[in-house]
């Protein structure tokens, strides 16, 4: 059976260091869509086993109140990732985020390990979803193949820190260094029918710059953004939540298209704008986003 969570709402994915119990005990009170429990860069090399231990018990003991639990595992070039996968599956993580993904083969290796772990721990095969972080030029060049690599994989995410290093540049805050990657990734993801997520914005004191960037990536088509602090959640959710005007318009479009289609009419106007069947999916998406964000309770 197709995993029903493949297409869930993922506007915010909040990074949390697995080593810090105080952070992972109750992030659901901030109401992010997903949390990203980090076993990779936030955890010191000699603390990997302690972080895994803490992660396992958090996954087992804490009720995250429906917030999706993504775990970022260590890269495939490290000796840690296979044990990371076993702990994630045994603990019941919803998603494994593969760091430094460069090829479809990388995804296949993790997928095989996940399936083996699901069998080992008697978890229904297919329960654990995957997402891939692209952190290099090669990864971005292979974005489409990575998107198509697995049924379990619901999307790709840009990881800006390593990517800018690979491009031999630095993060400027203007977004110019990520322009190509963002464009390539969103196109690849949409072509493969997958989701696409933007990188973190690290300057917590620049909320204005953050909001600008969120507005831009929303306009580009991204599904959401990785975040580093609960302070950023409200901004992302606000920008990604359809406005009342957008909801009303989308509702009209869907109703009109359904009605006109029955009458054999293909092109017509709504509020003075020309509308045809091409607007249908977009309007439906607006309504389901509004519904998921809790601002629309209509029947469409």
């Amino acid at each position: 059976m197709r995993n029903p969570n493949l297409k869930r709402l993922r506007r915010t994915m909040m990074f949390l260091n697995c080593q810090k119990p105080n952070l992972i005990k109750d992030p659901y009170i901030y109401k992010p869509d997903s949390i990203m429990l980090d076993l990779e860069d936030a955890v010191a090399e000699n603390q990997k086993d302690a972080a895994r231990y803490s992660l396992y018990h958090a996954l087992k003991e804490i009720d995250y109140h429906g917030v999706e639990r993504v775990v970022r595992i260590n890269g495939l070039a490290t000796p840690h990732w296979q044990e990371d996968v076993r702990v994630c599956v045994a603990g019941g993580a919803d998603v494994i985020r593969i760091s430094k993904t460069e090829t479809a083969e990388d995804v296949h290796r993790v997928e095989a390990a996940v399936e083996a772990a699901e069998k080992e721990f008697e978890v229904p095969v297919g329960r654990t979803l995957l997402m891939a972080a692209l952190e290099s030029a090669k990864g971005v060049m292979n974005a489409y193949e990575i998107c198509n690599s697995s049924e379990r994989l619901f999307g790709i995410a840009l990881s800006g820190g390593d990517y800018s290093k690979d491009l031999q540049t630095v993060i400027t805050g203007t977004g110019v260094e990520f322009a190509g990657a963002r464009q390539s990734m969103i196109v690849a993801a949409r072509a493969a029918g997958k989701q696409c997520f933007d990188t973190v914005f690290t300057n917590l004191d620049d909320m204005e710059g953050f909001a600008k960037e969120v507005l831009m990536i929303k306009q580009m088509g991204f599904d959401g953004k990785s975040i580093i602090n609960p302070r950023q959640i409200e901004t992302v959710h606000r920008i990604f939540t359809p406005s009342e005007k957008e909801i009303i318009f989308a509702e009209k479009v869907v109703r009109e298209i359904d009605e006109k289609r029955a009458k054999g009419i293909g092109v017509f106007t709504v509020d003075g704008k020309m509308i045809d069947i091409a607007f249908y999916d977009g309007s439906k998406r607006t309504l389901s986003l509004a519904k998921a964000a809790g601002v629309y309770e209509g029947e469409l």
Partner: protein
Amino acid sequence: MKNQVGREIPDELLKQYGKKVFSGSFVRSEDTYQKTGPCVHNYIDPTQSKMVSSIHEALVKCKIHDGMVLSFHHHFRDGDKIVNMVMEEVAKMGVKDITICASSLGSAHDPVAKLIEDGVVTGIQTSGVRGKIGEAISHGKLKNPAIIRSHGGRVRAIEEGDVHIDIAFIGAPTSDEYGNARGVGGKSDCGVLSYAMVDAKYADRVVVVTDCMVPFPNYPASISMTDVDYVCKVDCIGDPNKIVSNAVRMTKDVRELNMAHYCTQLIAESPYFKDGFSFQTGAGGASLAVNTMLRPIMEEKNIHMSFAIGGITKPICDLLEAGLVRNIVDAQDFDLGSIESLKNDANHYEISTSAYANPMNKGAFVNRLDFVILGALEVDVNFNVNVVTGSNGVLRGAPGGHPDTAAGSKCSIMVAPLIRGRIPTVCDQVVTVVTPGEDVDIVVTDYGIAINPRRQDLIEAYKDSNLPFCTIEELRDKAYAIVGTPEQVQFKDKVVGILEARDGSILDVIREVKPFEFKD
């Protein structure tokens, strides 16, 4: 004997102090009492000078001797130098058995802990105690049990004669040579001298200590020459950097902001939120944020606050300046902005602590409060609040105006994170009852909001609200599910502190702590 909040108060203690057990916040509402009065040493001779050259001379002239009660105020907070300056001299003079009756004591007064061990200080009566003094008391080193009272309760105790002050030392940022003292001016500006006003009226001897003499008359005076015996000029009465903050910190912590949002919504959705409402909040992160969050709602609904009260900070003064608050009545200033407002805004008034919170005068400001937002170290399932003893049982806090404002206001809101580290804030039983549950209306945590079932009217008022309401038991269960059910703090039998209710009855006792013993 058990009191109304279920605390066992030793009979011998009741007998020794002639006290009753707490039996409800308002049981004395029909009581009358005769006010006590000071012994006055007049200044009929106009050639007499009040100036003394040193604390030593002041003590000699006041005939300091063993067993006296000396009083102090805490407007200089952590920057206070007066208590240590006076007590050091008292110790040098070989005087013993002194009771310190202060409006609050903090870590600035750590040197007093040594005087407790030496027998110089054998009694402490205060509205707050932190640092080494708290530890000394909790470890049984003070000869007599410390008496902890609210700000209003302290005024009551002085006026009713439960404690009689022999000498009041009043640190003042400015004074003239005849003792007119003010909280503003000089280099140790603290704004108001509210806590000291009752001491000036009821102490046998009043000594104003200042580091800034100004020409006569220093008016309008916070402390009047009519009550002052001596004026002592010293080099320095306080550390300005620790008296007030340059600016209070506005929190960026989303958890605190969420709680502030809940408090703001509770106020906005309550039946008391209408033009002319009144409000007090503290200087904690969430409390301060409420000031800012209320502003747009007040503007949108064209609602003005009749008065804001309490410890004052700049954010509420900004609302005064914007015309959204009509008056500020000020009993303490926490930042430079509030002092500036007091100096410059005609609708910002200094009041006495009696006017602020005394339960047994003929009417205090707290009785006119609609909302108060208060912190809590612990709240139990009966809504009793502890703000005085830490999770290890050691004294480390201040009732301050907590019990006064909770009892006086129409809607008292406690705001605290559900857990701190591994300590649950909402629990089965608080270590020490400081504010009785009957005066606590709403508990706001980061996990949800509980309304006291005694307030069915509030439960009804919020029935259509989207706020995350739950029961206090549910909050406790959530806390225990995360950090586990805590073991009770272990104490020895010796009573080291008495927690007095506002009306003078005994609400709880604090016992000597002992090292935790694990079960096998």
